[in-house]
């Protein structure tokens, strides 16, 4: 259905693609694997008409195609589902679905025909009960994802390229999506699926291809490759240890929450975190994980319950600034929106919350800022030209390390990490795990959320499970199985009260 032959693409001196080969047959789901920066997104853009290759061929069926724009690719039956959803939030579902394909007579919209088409498209996704007149801004992320997929179907796409479609979905929505992908492929569509989650890839795809440094390095049947083999192919070296070895020796309690509740979807959470331990927070999207972190850090007002530091001082009504003084540091799940100032330098970003310390008589010591940042970058393995490079130029993994470096710079000893590895490639994930483990080893108390259960199981000493705004149970990781956690997260066994 889709074949890519020896495609090259350079941006200035940077070679993004250096000889990529790819074949996807009708009815097949191909997993495209590779670290961030390996060229996956560039390749997808070349196939979908957003970029033109310097050399090499893209063919649909046995016909070579040369799309000059996304519009041509769309007309040719190729649709790219972007990782960062490309929808018009102020428009309705129907308007988004049919954007550029509206039925019209002499420039005037034919309302009935458009509505019928939208209803027909939405009827293929019955579990969401979407109404054509709903505004996209009012929809949850999962529903927006479906709108984008439905839009691809509206253009009658035969080749679907999906760039990390589940990165912002919870487990149940992801499962729906996977079912849908199987259905679409069984109808004869060819699907390319990009994801960092290997077990997810195994659930959806049959074949895989690995890109590294812009070149195809391996392909085959997923059933024939182990996870370790795949990871090794992606990073180009042997990876034996995904998760750091932990020898936790929990110290004194650093932070204690009792029956915390906020108006933003946190109903009740009780949790004690000790120095030197890593506590994971599991739960579905919307279960209140982020809200718990925000409540602890003071970004959402606590309406009932208590939060205190290790010495028993009440923090519930304290400002963010006071909580930071008490040692708290927060990493937002929304790196680009809330976490980092992308056009500022690494130095400015890492020291943003500790500038007063670097100033003398109100004047910032640029030298100290530079030196300290350089040291933090070394410690955390941030790959960049210099501390003065704008953060926006770094890869996702390196950006996230900069965000973590800020906590280190600020001297935080209670780390609240909301999805610290979201959108980060496997190589960087391993490094981030190491940074977190090292912080804990130095005596920091770490609370981290994740939608990626294997990560929590691999990194955390204890895991708390949230369901519908409640922290329903906290146990040592060794006492949990993945199935038990999932059951709790789904609210399947509601009998147990929280215990630590």
């Amino acid at each position, binding site marked *: 259905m889709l074949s890519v032959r020896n495609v090259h693409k350079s941006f200035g001196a940077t070679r993004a693609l250096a000889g990529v080969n790819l074949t996807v047959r009708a009815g097949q789901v191909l997993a495209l694997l590779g670290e961030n920066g390996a060229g996956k997104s560039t390749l997808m853009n070349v196939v979908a008409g957003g970029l033109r290759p310097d050399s090499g061929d893209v063919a649909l069926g046995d016909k070579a195609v040369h799309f000059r724009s*996304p519009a041509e690719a*769309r007309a040719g039956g190729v649709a790219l589902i*972007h990782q960062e959803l490309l929808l018009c939030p102020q428009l309705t579902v129907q308007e988004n679905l049919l954007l*550029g394909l509206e039925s019209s007579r002499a420039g*005037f919209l034919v309302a009935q025909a458009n509505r019928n088409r939208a209803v027909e498209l939405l009827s293929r996704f019955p579990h969401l009960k979407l109404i054509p007149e709903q505004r996209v801004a009012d929809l949850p992320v999962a529903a927006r994802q479906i709108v984008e997929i439905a839009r691809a179907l509206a253009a009658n796409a035969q080749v679907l390229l999906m760039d990390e479609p589940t990165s912002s979905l919870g487990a149940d929505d992801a499962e729906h999506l996977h079912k849908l992908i199987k259905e679409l492929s069984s109808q004869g569509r060819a699907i390319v699926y990009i994801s960092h989650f290997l077990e997810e890839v195994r659930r959806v795809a049959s074949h895989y291809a690995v890109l590294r440094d812009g070149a195809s390095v391996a392909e085959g049947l997923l059933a024939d490759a182990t996870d370790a083999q795949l990871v090794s192919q992606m990073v180009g070296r042997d990876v034996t240890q995904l998760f750091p070895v932990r020898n936790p020796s929990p110290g004194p309690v650093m932070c204690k929450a009792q029956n915390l509740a906020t108006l933003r979807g946190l109903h009740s959470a009780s949790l004690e975190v000790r120095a030197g331990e890593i506590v994971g927070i599991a739960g579905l999207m919307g279960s209140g994980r982020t809200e718990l972190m925000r409540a602890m850090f003071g970004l959402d007002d606590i309406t009932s319950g208590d939060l205190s530091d290790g010495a028993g001082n009440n923090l519930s009504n304290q400002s963010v600034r006071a909580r930071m003084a008490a040692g708290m540091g927060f990493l937002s799940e929304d790196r680009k929106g809330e976490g980092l100032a992308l056009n500022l330098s690494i130095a400015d970003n890492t020291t943003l919350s500790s500038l007063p310390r670097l100033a003398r008589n109100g004047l910032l010591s640029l030298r100290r800022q530079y030196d300290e940042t350089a040291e933090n970058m070394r410690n955390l393995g941030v790959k960049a030209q210099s501390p003065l490079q704008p953060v926006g130029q770094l890869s996702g993994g390196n950006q996230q390390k900069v965000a973590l470096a800020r906590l280190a710079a600020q001297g935080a000893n209670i780390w609240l990490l909301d999805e610290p590895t979201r959108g980060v490639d496997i190589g960087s994930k391993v490094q981030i795990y190491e940074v977190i483990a090292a912080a804990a080893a130095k005596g920091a108390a770490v609370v981290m959320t994740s939608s990626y259960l294997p990560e929590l199981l691999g990194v955390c000493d204890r895991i708390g499970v949230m369901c519908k705004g409640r922290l329903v149970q906290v146990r040592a990781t060794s006492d949990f199985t993945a199935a038990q956690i999932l059951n709790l997260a789904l609210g399947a066994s509601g009998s147990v009260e929280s215990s630590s």
Partner: protein
Amino acid sequence: MKNILRRFGPVMALLLVIGTFAVLTGAPERYLSVHNLRVVLAQTVTVGVAALGMTMIVITGGIDLSVGSVIALAGVTAARVLQTGTSPWLAIAAAMAMGSFVGLVNAAAITRLKVIPFVATLGSLGAARGIAKWIAHEQTVDIPTTWLNELAVTVPLHAAWLVAPGVWVAAALSIVVFVLLSRTVFGRHLYAVGSNEAAAKACGLSPDRIKLAVYSLAGAFFGLSGLLQMSRLRQGDPTVAAGVELDVIAAVVIGGASLSGGQGGVVGSLVGALLMAFLRNGSQQMGWPTYVQETMIGVIIVFAVALDRVRARRG
């Protein structure tokens, strides 16, 4: 509930302003008299017609600061054409063409030179004013008496018209733009480009072409607004309408459009224009000095937008 507020919020504010002044002036029968309504409507026409064009631009996420200068430029252009003694229709065409031309230049700077709309139109704000003064030799341009002079008068020549012909023109154009925005593919695409340009591109739309179209189209409206202004003054004045861009943008914003694009409509913008006209008129009747009006309008703009933000967050 939220939709009702969004829809009728500006209308309620307008009624509130009218009601307040009817009571304050102590003579509701005078404030709400046919004559006073004619005065207000005649005063609203220039800003109203320009606001129609601005609404379309703001929906795409753009802005045009050159409106005031374009009104002056189109006015003196039309006046010069009239001086040659040709048909008034030619003068109308010239005014609209001149407005359209400035819009096209703006759009070219925005799409080809990648200058943001604020800066591109800030430039043409200066340039258009300069050219207007050049065409007019830095003085007002007198025009021969034609039917054009009756377009924007307070009391129409023929009683059967009820209000000035210009008001009817504005009303007709409002309906045209309303239908354009809500019922045509082009209108839909304006909202799409303003809402998320990348998404529009991914769906095969050409944001650049759409912007060229919308700035030129809006420019024609600005040109017409300039013609109405000239008709009201009965001369082409190159210094007229300085600062009107702020009134026009304020009307659109009070009417519920978002300066970040994707949102806005004809009804809101017209209500916004009327609201400011009634406020001005009411203050004049109260004998308040102009600085009171200016301050009040400034406060109202900020409140209208703040209210909209609150509504959006509640939603």
